[in-house]
C-alpha cells in the first residue's frame, strides 16, 4: 500500500515535471517577432549570417518536437547550454548565484514557521469577539504588506538607530558567518512578515478546530493538564494543515526573495535573471526558471511523502 502510494506520487511528479519543462520550453514562443533577431540586436549588428549561426547554435532551425527533445534531453544531463554572451555554461552561472537566494528563502521560512506556531496557539487561546476583530485586521495588514517596501522601511529604521551598521550587500557565510547573518536578518524579516500573518492564522483556526474535537474532550475528562491538552493533543493535529501549506509558502518566499534581494543589493538569482532579461539572454532566463522550479517541485514532493509517513491516518 505504502509502496503503491510512493509510486503514484512519483508518477505524478514526473507528469508535473514534464508539464513544467514543456511550459518553460514554449515560453520563448511568447516573444513577439523573431526571438533570434531580438537576442542578437541587444548586443551586435544583425546580419543574415549571424542570424543563421545563432539560430543553428540554439537549434531553432529544427522541427519543434525535435527542438524540445534535444533541449529536454540535454537539460536532463545537466546541460542547459552556454550563456549566449559570456560563453559560460548556464548551469554554472546559476549555481554561482543561487546560494544567497536559497539562504534568504530558508532563513525566512525558519523565521516565519518558527514565529507563526506559537503566535497561532496564543491567538487560539485568546479567542473572543474583540480579539478576533483585531487579529483579523492585523493579519490582513501583515499579509498585504509588500515585503520590498517593508525592507526599505527597515533600512530606514536601521539607519536612524545605528547609522554605522551595514545593512546592504552580501558576504558568504563561509567567509564571515556573523557578517553574513547580520546582513541577511533584515531581508529575512521583511520577507517572512507576510507569511507569519498567514500561517499564524492558519494555525489558529486549526487549533480552534482541534480543541473542539472529541479526543480533546476525552483528554480533559481523564484529567490531563491544560498544557498537555493544548500541546500534546490539539497542537499535534493542528500542525497537519500547517505542514502541508509550507510548500506553497516556500514557493511564495522563493519568488519574493528575488524582489527583496534587489532592495538589499544581494547578488542572487534576482540579479542573474534581471540581468539576463535586460541582455535578452532568453536561454538563461528559461534555464533559471526551469532549475528553480524543478528544485521546488521535487522538494515539495519529498515533503508530501514525508507528510504521509508522519500522519498515521493517511498511511492506512
Amino acid at each position: 500500500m505504502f509502496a503503491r502510494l510512493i509510486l503514484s506520487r512519483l508518477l505524478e511528479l514526473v507528469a508535473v515535471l514534464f508539464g513544467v519543462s514543456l511550459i518553460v520550453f514554449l515560453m520563448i514562443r511568447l516573444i513577439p517577432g523573431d526571438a533570434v533577431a531580438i537576442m542578437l540586436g541587444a548586443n551586435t549588428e544583425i546580419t543574415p549570417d549571424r542570424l543563421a549561426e545563432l539560430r543553428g547554435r540554439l537549434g531553432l532551425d529544427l522541427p519543434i518536437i525535435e527542438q524540445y527533445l534535444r533541449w529536454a534531453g540535454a537539460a536532463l544531463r545537466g546541460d542547459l547550454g552556454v550563456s549566449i554572451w559570456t560563453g559560460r555554461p548556464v548551469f554554472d552561472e546559476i549555481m554561482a548565484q543561487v546560494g544567497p537566494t536559497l539562504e534568504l528563502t530558508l532563513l525566512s521560512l525558519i523565521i516565519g514557521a518558527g514565529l507563526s506556531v506559537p503566535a497561532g496557539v496564543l491567538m487560539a487561546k485568546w479567542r473572543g469577539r474583540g480579539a478576533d476583530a483585531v487579529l483579523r485586521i492585523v493579519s490582513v495588514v501583515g499579509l498585504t504588506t509588500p515585503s520590498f517596501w517593508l525592507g526599505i522601511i527597515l533600512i530606514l529604521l536601521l539607519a536612524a538607530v545605528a547609522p554605522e551598521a551595514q545593512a546592504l550587500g552580501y558576504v558568504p557565510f563561509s567567509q564571515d558567518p556573523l557578517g553574513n547573518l547580520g546582513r541577511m536578518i533584515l531581508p529575512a524579516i521583511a520577507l517572512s512578515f507576510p507569511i507569519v500573518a498567514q500561517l499564524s492564522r492558519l494555525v489558529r483556526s486549526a487549533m480552534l478546530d482541534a480543541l473542539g474535537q472529541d479526543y480533546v474532550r476525552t483528554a480533559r475528562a481523564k484529567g490531563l493538564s491544560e498544557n498537555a491538552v493544548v500541546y500534546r493533543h490539539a497542537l499535534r493535529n493542528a500542525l497537519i494543515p500547517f505542514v502541508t501549506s509550507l510548500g506553497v509558502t516556500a514557493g511564495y518566499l522563493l519568488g519574493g526573495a528575488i524582489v527583496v534581494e534587489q532592495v538589499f543589493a544581494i547578488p542572487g538569482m534576482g540579479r542573474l535573471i534581471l540581468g539576463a532579461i535586460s541582455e535578452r539572454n532568453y536561454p538563461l532566463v528559461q534555464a533559471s526558471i526551469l532549475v528553480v522550479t524543478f528544485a521546488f517541485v521535487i522538494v515539495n514532493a519529498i515533503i508530501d511523502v514525508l507528510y504521509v509517513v508522519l500522519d498515521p491516518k493517511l498511511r492506512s
Partner: protein
Amino acid sequence: MKRLLWRDATLTFAALLVAAHVLAAIAAPLIAPHDPLAQNIIARLKGPSADNWLGADQLGRDVFSRILYGYRTSLAVSLGAVFASLLAGGALGLLAAFYKGWFERIVMRCMDALFAFPVLLLAIGVVAMLGPQASSAAIAIAIVYTPIFARLMRAAALVVIESEFVVAAKTIGCSDARLLVRHVLPNLASVMIAQTALMLSAAILVEASLSFLGLGAQPPSPSLGLMLAEGRNFLMLSPWSAIFAGLAILILSFGFNLLGDALRDRLDPRLRGG
C-alpha cells in the same frame, strides 16, 4: 444584499475602502492637485508640504498626484488580469468538473504544471518574453492565476454537480448549457466572488513587485512599484516618495483582501468567528 452589508461592519468598511480607491483612480484627473508628470525643480525631494501633500520625488513631481494615477495603472492591470484568469480558469474548471474523463485529465494536468511554478518566478518569465510593459504584467498575472481559479472552480463545481437538484434537472432533460448556466453557476458565484477579491489583493502586490523590478509599467508613467524603485535610490535624501508609494500599495491590497476575507466568512457559516 443591503441588509448583509449593514450587518457586518468589517464588510462595510472593506467595501467602502475599495470603492473609495476605485473612485479615486477613475476621478484622478479631477482630484489630483498637480499633473503627475509635471517636474518642478524647486520642489525636488521635498517632504510633505501645503503644496505637495505627500512631498515630491527626485524630479519634483507631486507624490500624491502620482499615487492617484498609480492607482489607475495598478487597478487596470490587476482587474484586467484577475478577470481574465477568472473567466479562463473558471470555464476550464467548470467544464472539467462537468465533462470529466480525458478532458478533465488533460486540463487539470496542464493546470497542475502551471501551478507548480513559484508565482512570481513564472510571472517574471512571461514578462521577460513579452517585453517589460504594463500589458505584459497583466498577461503574466492572468496566466499565473488561471490554475488557481480552475482548481477552485472544479472542486466547488464537483460538489454542486453531484447534488440532487442538478441530477433532477438532468433527469428531466435539461440541456448541458442550461444546466451549467442556470443551475450550477449560480451556486458557485459566492465562492468565486470572495476568491476574486482575494486574488485582486494578491495581484496588486504582484503587479507592484513586477514594476518595482522594472518589468511592469515603464517610466515616466506613474506606477506605485516604479515609484518605490525610484524612491529607493534617494532613500537617505528623501524617503517620502518610497514610504508613501508603499503605503498606497499596502492600503489598496488591504482593502481587497479584507473584502474577500469578510465575504468568505459571510458565505461560509462554518468559518464565522473562526
